[in-house]
């Protein structure tokens, strides 16, 4: 009964979202005001029924209803409670439902927090969100129904993929999706402006908080994913340029570009059509990412052909939503005029550089990710494009980006005197180079040129960010009370970026990664640390059996910690899982993973020392925090307005 309620609600939601899509758009074309008024109630109704549907699936999982095919394939009676819940998004169908649920929440928020905006415009925004929602709903209902029943009942389920049975994986998909799907809001704002034929004054300011909020979630989602890969996949890497990772990174880069171009549009009224294009691009990349990950095409292009209905539907959806938006853009972009000018040395000019470099990096990642698929599909050979390629092509735009980032922050709008800028920054440049070299030399030793460049750039961004509020504190003309939340946001985010760059640079150069075999009683050294294999024992979990090694770590004669890495066998899927154990400090991680038994009582072990790897995730979290600070004012204002 409950799955049927879920499915029926999904059908109702489809019709509501279709109404939300058609009525406002037709209403604005025919100038019929009464049709516009349908948008908000439909947004609320859609939210209500998609929620019912989502919770129906949740209940089916919690009750282990194995008459539902999706539950059978992704759950098991012995699965712990939390994972039964997170198993909702353990497969394709449920992920789509999560996607829709999050979209309905964003749509509801747009309808609730935009009461002061022009009715016609907001109705169009909701109409565009309705188009997205209804097309994904019909896709879900026709090709990926999570409520489908099994013809023959089974006694127990196939269990959730053990890789996903992890706390970070409970959080990662929803947070990532909140970011991904959130980009539908700036997309809708942009497309609604194109449909409307005119840009309302304040349009860019309305769009900014939604864009930044989505970006904050996307940043945190990617960070969680990277952290999870680091400790769960068992090889100690934090980024592999895997297509799945790239699928989330491309919208992030485009969203970052969008946030920066929005500043120009908001402050100077320039780059309007470019900002619209970026908003379309950011969400299109999110859609592409969702489908790349979920269609199975990444594992093999032939997976696309085994289920042609899904594949063709996906292509149709992408061309309808993104193609439609671009088509509209091609017609209307010309009518959008920018009034104003700026100098070569100006904030606008640096933000333009930022946008161009970010979009170049999106495009090279896109080509690198899709190229092997196209080649295979065209029968021109099977190739791999991996870290060596991506590191090379990504780092080329990133070096000038980091350099100009520090300068751009200190440039003023419209025109900056070059000599003043040089006066202001030459000391910082000098400090970054000297301290960069000295610090690196004293700590890790300068071993290669690129590492030195990376470290200096990271330091340069940090110093340049800190000097921004410092300038307000120590200046006679400026007051720190005038340092707005927006400026704090910028400072904090860029500071985080500097921390991130230092983390990446140091970890990728100075990590010590070793594989060895050892048996109980063995001792060995890695870097400055000594390791002793104390014990090996069997441990039982709720749905797995594990071998657990106890390995003591010493620095000289001081015991630092005892690490307990496990090799788990999950009872249902019988797949072995590596659970690494990590001693983490801000300065370094000691990572130990238990490999395979080698027969004679010895085990293969992976022991790694990773200096400053925490800076990578810490930097990303600081970036997200900066985003949050920059919109904190608009957030509190909109909540206050709501309850006035």
């Amino acid at each position, binding site marked *: 009964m409950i799955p049927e309620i879920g499915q029926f609600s999904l059908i109702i939601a489809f019709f509501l979202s279709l109404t939300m899509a058609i009525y406002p758009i037709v209403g604005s074309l025919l100038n019929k005001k009464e049709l516009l008024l349908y948008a908000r109630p439909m947004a609320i109704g859609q939210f209500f029924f998609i929620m019912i549907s989502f919770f129906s699936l949740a209940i089916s999982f919690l009750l282990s209803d194995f008459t539902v095919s999706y539950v059978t394939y992704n759950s098991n009676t012995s699965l712990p409670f939390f994972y039964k819940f997170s198993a909702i998004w353990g497969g394709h169908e449920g992920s789509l439902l999560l996607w829709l649920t999050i979209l309905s929440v964003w749509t509801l928020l747009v309808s609730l927090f935009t009461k002061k905006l022009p009715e016609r415009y907001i109705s169009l925004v909701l109409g565009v969100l309705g188009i997205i929602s209804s097309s994904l709903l019909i896709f879900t209902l026709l090709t990926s129904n999570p409520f489908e029943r099994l013809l023959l009942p089974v006694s127990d389920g196939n269990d959730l993929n053990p890789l996903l049975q992890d706390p970070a994986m409970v959080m990662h998909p929803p947070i990532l999706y909140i970011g991904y799907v959130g980009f539908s809001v700036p997309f809708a704002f942009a497309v609604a402006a194109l449909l409307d034929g005119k840009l309302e004054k304040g349009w860019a300011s309305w769009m900014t908080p939604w864009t930044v909020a989505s970006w904050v979630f996307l940043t945190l989602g990617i960070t969680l994913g990277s952290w999870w890969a680091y400790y769960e996949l068992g090889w100690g890497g934090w980024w592999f340029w895997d297509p799945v990772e790239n699928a989330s990174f491309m919208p992030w880069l485009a969203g970052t570009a969008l946030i920066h171009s929005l500043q120009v549009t908001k402050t100077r009224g320039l780059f309007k059509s470019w900002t619209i294009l970026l908003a379309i691009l950011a969400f299109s990349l999110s859609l592409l990412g969702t489908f790349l990950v979920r269609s199975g095409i990444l594992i093999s292009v032939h997976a696309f052909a085994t289920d042609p209905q899904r594949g063709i539907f996906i292509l149709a959806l992408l061309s309808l939503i993104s193609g439609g938006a671009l088509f509209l853009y091609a017609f209307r972009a010309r009518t959008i005029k920018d009034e104003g000018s700026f100098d070569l040395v100006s904030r606008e000019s640096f933000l333009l550089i930022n946008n161009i470099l970010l979009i170049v990096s999106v495009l090279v990642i896109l080509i690198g990710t899709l190229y092997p698929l196209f080649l295979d599909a065209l029968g021109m050979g099977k190739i791999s494009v991996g870290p*060596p390629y991506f590191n090379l092509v990504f780092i080329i735009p990133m070096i000038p980006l980091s350099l100009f980032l520090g300068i751009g922050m200190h440039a003023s709008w419209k025109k900056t005197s070059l000599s003043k800028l040089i006066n202001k920054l030459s000391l910082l440049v000098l400090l970054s180079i000297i301290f960069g070299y000295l610090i690196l030399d004293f700590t890790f030793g300068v071993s290669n040129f690129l590492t030195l460049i990376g470290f200096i750039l990271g330091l340069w961004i940090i110093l340049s960010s800190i000097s921004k509020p410092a300038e307000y504190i120590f200046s006679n003309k400026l007051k720190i009370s005038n340092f707005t939340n927006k400026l704090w946001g910028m400072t904090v985010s860029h500071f985080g970026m500097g921390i991130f760059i230092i983390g990446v640079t140091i970890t990728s150069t100075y990590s010590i990664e070793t594989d060895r075999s050892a048996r109980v009683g063995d001792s060995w050294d890695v870097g400055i640390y000594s390791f002793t294999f104390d014990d090996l024992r069997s441990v039982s979990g709720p749905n797995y059996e594990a071998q657990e090694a106890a390995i003591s770590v010493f620095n000289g004669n001081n015991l630092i910690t005892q690490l307990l890495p496990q090799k788990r066998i999950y009872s249902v899927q019988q797949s072995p899982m590596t659970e690494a154990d990590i001693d983490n400090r801000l300065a370094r991680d000691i990572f130990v993973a238990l490999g395979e038994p080698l027969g004679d009582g010895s085990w293969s072990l992976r022991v790694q020392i990773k200096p400053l790897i925490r800076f990578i995730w810490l930097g990303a979290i600081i970036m997200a925090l900066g985003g949050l600070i920059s919109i904190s004012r608009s957030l509190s204002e909109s909540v206050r307005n709501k309850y006035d």
Partner: protein
Amino acid sequence: MNFVYKFLSLSLFSIGSLFAIDQELAFEDPALLSTYQDLVNEIRCLVCQNQTIADSTAPLATDLKREIKSMIEQGVPKDDILIFLTDRYGDFVLYNPPLQANTLVLWATPIIFILIGVATFILILRKYTKQS
């Protein structure tokens, strides 16, 4: 062509995590060690889901690592080891795709994009500085 590829693959930009050291497979000579590290970090483990053989503990990856080590010890140059591996497993085994007919577009596009980026910057800048 070959020269360009060599330049790209040897270029100082290819950072990655190049410092994987296999204790049991350690080399005395640091030059050989770095050749080994370069190799295992750009060879795909064919039985894994998108992992290098350096990262993988799968038996096939371990065997391949041992094989690469013995070739290096016998003095086989890096390029010849790569040829040996591609002859056996195809281009799919290389994470650093070689420059050849079917990867021409892949390697050319980043350069083209950067050029387009620079051109775009100049064009946009001229448009906005002219207005004043």
